């Protein structure tokens, strides 16, 4: 193992302190026995208990989960389709423009995305609520999916698909029997990414929601304005756990495949 220089140690420490100190504090204070957020009153898990008795919070969490699963699933399908069109079907007219346009929502300020969606729903005279949140989450997570899947497809050996066609498989079946299984890890991690993005979103949801559809981030945000309770810390810590879990699974899935593959290839190369 290479030893880190003093400079590297210092930069790592500062960097990671910036990144994780707030979250660590949040998690620690979620175990605070006292009512105050600022004063430590000993260890306790009672706030976690009270989270599960707070029906409003649970409702919000349930809505968030439904929005997340639904929007991530649809976004994954649409994003994968867009990625395939962009990565595959040669040089159709305006391909470069479309490729660039897929990336645009990544850098678009959320306020603008939220506002423009709101205007759209108003113009269409749609009742705002659960479904409008789902639609807007599909809109803004789809491009992340497209980018992730497209980068996987760019390293995809096309002759594998051609081999399937050559062996008598129709183009449609080739996608499901050959292409999809091979890019599946990328598609799953794209889903995870879309899911966590949807889970965390406050701004776009606030713009596009209506009565009866309060997501967890919105609920937390409105509660905090009335004063931070340790209960909020507890629910936030739970969200951190869920998001961390999803991200870790997604990256382990891709990493594990790569490592396994490399190891097997090394073994095979030494075989006669």
């Amino acid at each position, binding site marked *: 193992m290479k030893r880190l220089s003093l400079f590297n140690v210092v930069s790592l420490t500062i960097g990671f302190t910036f990144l994780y100190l707030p979250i660590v504090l949040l998690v620690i204070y979620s175990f605070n026995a006292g009512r105050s957020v600022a004063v430590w009153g000993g260890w306790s898990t009672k706030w976690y208990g009270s989270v599960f008795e707070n029906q409003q919070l649970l409702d919000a969490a349930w809505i968030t989960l439904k929005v997340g699963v639904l929007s991530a699933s649809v976004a994954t399908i649409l994003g994968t389709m867009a990625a395939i069109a962009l990565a595959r079907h040669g040089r159709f007219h305006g391909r470069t423009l479309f490729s660039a346009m897929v990336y645009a929502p990544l850098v678009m300020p959320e306020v603008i995305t939220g506002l423009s969606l709101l205007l759209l729903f108003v113009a269409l005279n749609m009742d705002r609520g659960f479904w409008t949140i789902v639609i807007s989450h599909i809109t803004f997570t789809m491009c992340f999916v497209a980018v992730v899947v497209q980068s996987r497809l760019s390293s995809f*050996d096309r*002759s*594998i698909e*051609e*081999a*399937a*066609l*050559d*062996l*008598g*498989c*129709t*183009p449609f079946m080739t996608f499901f029997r*050959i292409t999809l*299984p*091979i890019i599946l890890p990328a598609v799953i991690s794209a889903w995870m990414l879309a899911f966590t993005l949807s889970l965390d979103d406050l701004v776009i949801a606030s713009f596009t929601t209506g009565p009866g559809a309060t997501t967890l981030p919105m609920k937390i945000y409105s509660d905090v304005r009335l004063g931070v309770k340790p209960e909020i810390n507890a629910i936030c810590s739970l969200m951190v756990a869920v998001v961390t879990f999803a991200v870790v699974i997604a990256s382990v899935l891709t990493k594990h495949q790569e490592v396994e*593959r490399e190891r*097997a*290839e090394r*073994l*095979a*190369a030494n*075989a*006669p």
Partner: protein
Amino acid sequence: MSAKALGPVRRKFAPWNDPSAVPLIKIRDVSKAFGSFTAVNNVSLDIYEREFFALLGPSGCGKTTLMRMLAGFETPSAGSISIAGEDLAGTPPHKRPVNMMFQSYALFPHMSVEKNIAFGLEMDKLPKGEITARVEEMLKLVKLETFAKRKPHQLSGGQRQRVALARSIAKRPKVLLLDEPLGALDKKLREETQFELLDLQMALGMTFVIVTHDQDEAMTMADRIAVMNHGQFVQISPPAELYEQPVSKYVADFIGDINLLEGRVTKNERGHIVLGSEVTGGRIESLGETVAGLGDKAWFAVRPEKVSIDLQPPNDPTVNTASGTVWDIGYVGDISVYHVKLDNGGTMRASIANTRRVVERPISWEDKVFLTWAPDSGIVLTK
């Protein structure tokens, strides 16, 4: 793949000389353009049943494009392709009676060896029992019985190559297309596999069309070779004819090593040609025919192994003789190649089989030598 004496069969096989033979594959006036680049330029070709046909040429000569048009991955810009009398225009790849072995092998990484081989058979909706039997047969044929459950990434390069082969012949296609099938193997394995492929082709009675840039590969395996350049066929001949009777300097130079001696025709009588050459400083006499007229520029092409090298001048040094100094000696093991700087400028090569273990060479660097050849050892080329 057992060794069988295939000589008698191979020797007699020449349907392209039989006017009544019906070709299996007919390629007629086919062109393919990508934008402004013409990859294949108006070619026609007949390939016969059970033939082992090689498309040979440098990269970018259009050989792969032509093969991909046979497989259906590219559509000809003009012309027609038919197999067994059936025009293939508009037939998508998955409905063509050909299978292809890809250069990258293109194995399905998420399927085991047996699943890979069974894939094409499943697509044909064969009964389960038949698929199992056929897969077993294929595994046995390529000697991979013990690897049936492995995934492609758990195999060596040579094993993957054999899986790719097994998968492409499992459906028993009329025509098997092989795109640089041995390109990724090391030399030793490649040479073994060449003969295995030959045996296999004979045993299965299939028509093989192979694309390669490796002339040794084409020469060893093919019944006929089409040399391609700039999207066109330069020559289509059996290997020996290609080597001994190239139609142009390009073919002569592309296949093996050759000395090209420039001269002017001073005599062209039936079967006897004489060139006056400044390179040799004398006459070059050759047997054979040429279209060149008197005074025309022509080249005498002679292979290095047909040139003798000697320290003593021949009886008549004005005929079929070039003198010079040994400039370099390339020792390849089985042969030594002498690079001789000619007195009149230019260089010639002579290769001598090393029939004994040489420690002291009789001819060494800087020696004054005489290169000679027989009148029937070369050919006169006009282009």
